[in-house]
């Protein structure tokens, strides 16, 4: 069997808050294969956010190991982690986190600035990704001129621009209405079917249903890890559309 894309072992994270040591994550072992669509669930304080931060190389574990694409990344330096985030991981956030008063194109090209690409190359790749999320016509628009769903598409294009191994989406539909949420999930499912590995954090059961595997956290450990038969987002979207037409 080939090497999983993500493999964590005995992953633990402790925070020191005053004189207390809070264990946010205590011994997590998970392997995620390339091309999986994983939903991470759990109540707040369950450790799922900590787990996502560690997966995203935004933080280092207190102990345990983390291999990403065969490379041990748990104990890299800050600058090395920045490199990993830049080249191997794409982030999508709940609140989009686009730069204000900056065009969609420049927002998408942002990670490439830190890859040291020349302007022509940056713009070329950003244009391709914007076209891929269906916003080819809105490259010059600023975030304030775009709807929430469009903003999240720009954010997804930004996450894809450096051809990452892994797309990490932290509550990507949390700030969107249900119809737009399903549109975004359609987009993510489409990307996943093209081979992209997606890890999604959500607390909405019906959003998690679009994934092929659901991992539940509670009190810093994995309490449930099961495969899921994904609902097809495109079909859900069509049914919503038909309900709308009826009413």
């Amino acid at each position, binding site marked *: 069997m080939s090497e999983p894309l993500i493999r964590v072992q005995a992953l633990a994270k402790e925070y020191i808050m005053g004189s207390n040591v809070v264990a946010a994550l205590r011994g997590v072992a998970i392997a995620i294969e390339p091309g999986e669509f994983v939903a991470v669930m759990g109540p707040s304080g369950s450790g799922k956010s900590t787990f996502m931060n560690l997966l995203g190389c935004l933080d280092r574990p207190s102990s345990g190991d983390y291999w990403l694409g065969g490379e041990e990344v748990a104990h890299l330096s800050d600058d090395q982690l920045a490199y990993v985030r830049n080249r191997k991981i794409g982030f999508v956030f709940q609140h989009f986190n686009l730069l204000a008063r*900056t065009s969609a194109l420049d927002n998408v090209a942002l990670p490439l600035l*830190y890859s*040291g690409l020349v302007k022509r190359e940056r713009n070329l790749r950003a244009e391709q990704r914007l076209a891929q999320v269906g916003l080819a016509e809105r490259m010059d628009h600023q975030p304030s001129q775009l709807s929430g769903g469009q903003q999240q598409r720009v954010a997804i294009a930004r996450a894809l621009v450096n051809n990452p191994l892994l797309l990490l989406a932290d509550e990507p539909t949390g700030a969107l209405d249900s119809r737009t949420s399903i549109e975004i999930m359609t987009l993510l499912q489409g990307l996943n079917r093209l081979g992209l590995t997606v890890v999604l954090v959500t607390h909405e059961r019906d959003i998690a249903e679009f994934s092929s595997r659901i991992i539940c956290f509670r009190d810093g450990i994995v309490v449930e890890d099961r495969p899921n038969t994904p609902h097809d987002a495109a079909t859900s979207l069509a049914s919503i559309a038909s309900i709308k037409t009826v009413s």
Partner: protein
Amino acid sequence: MNFLATLRIALNALRVNKLRSALTMLGIIIGVGAVIVMIAVGSGAQAKVEAQIRSLGANLIMVFSASATFTGARSGAGSLQTISEDDAYAIARELPDEIQTTAPALRGSGQVVAGNANWSATFYGVTPEYFEAREWQIAEGRGIEQVEVNSAAKVAVIGLTVARNLYGDSSPIDQIIRIRKVPLTIVGVLERKGQSMSGQDQDDIVLLPISTARKRVLGATALAKSRSVGSFTVKVRQGVEIKEAEEKMRDLLRQRHRLQPGQEDDFNVRNLSEILQAQEASSRVLAILLAAVASVSLLVGGIGIMNIMLVSVTERTREIGLRRAVGARSLDILQQFLIEAITLSLIGGLIGILLGSLGAHLVGEFAGWPIKLSPYATLMAVSFAAAIGIFFGYYPARQAARMSPIDALRHE
């Protein structure tokens, strides 16, 4: 991540927040502008004092004849004619290393008559050297020439006060004045000098060739036969210690006058250097003081930059978090904010220089103060502005760079 890209990011961030960038710059603009204006005013004042010193003569030594004593009452300096034109020329000849030039002057006073106007003025019989020694500039016409001294020509150069009182606004050149009935053709008018340090009107003066004064105007007196003068002016070369030149000159004069050791000088020597140096020092203090006050406003401008940058870092916490998440190293973030601060202060500094130079000219125009813009001060203000950008930008930039990406992303 190269430097150019960081520069572009920083400039873009400034462009996106135009109003805030402009307001931040304002502090630096005012600071640098104030420094430029103040230094211009201060060094202008200093230059004026220095010019005054040259025209009044910090490097001048005045030699007077000794005072005569008549039955116990001593008359003023110059009342005895113990020094001569030849003494003056000898000093210039014998001490070429110390003395730039010497100018004998034969003083007299009398009524100056022109047509039906008249004016009481002091006149001096002089040689062409006098103009150089006393730094007289010619406003109109020309000065006195050596041939006129040789031939005792009947010409005169008059000061502005005399010209105004005799001729009003019309040109006095080629007009005839009479002093003690001797007709003299006016060949030149002196440039205005204003008051002397003691409050005398220096422009109330008539200059004529020394030979003319001696033979024709002062006329019949015994004086006419000798070559003696009441005083002469000695101009010391630039960079030569006045005291030293004075001592050498004194020795030479004693030798020429055949004075025995122990015998008193039969002449008096004076110079103004000490008073003038004191005045120069006080104007320099003024200039430094002005620059110091202006520097305070530059400092305040710098603190303004730090303030805005700190606000900006807090406000852009999520942006910082995002940049970290997509691959910026903390060094990239540090650079970005530092470049923003330096750019603000540099652009502000450049605008400040422009406005400051303009302001300095306006001050010179409307307040009538002498203004002197120095490229050195300008350069200093720019480097100071850049230094302020680095100094006051570093702290906020470090705050930004140290932020944990997770906390920054979660920031509301």
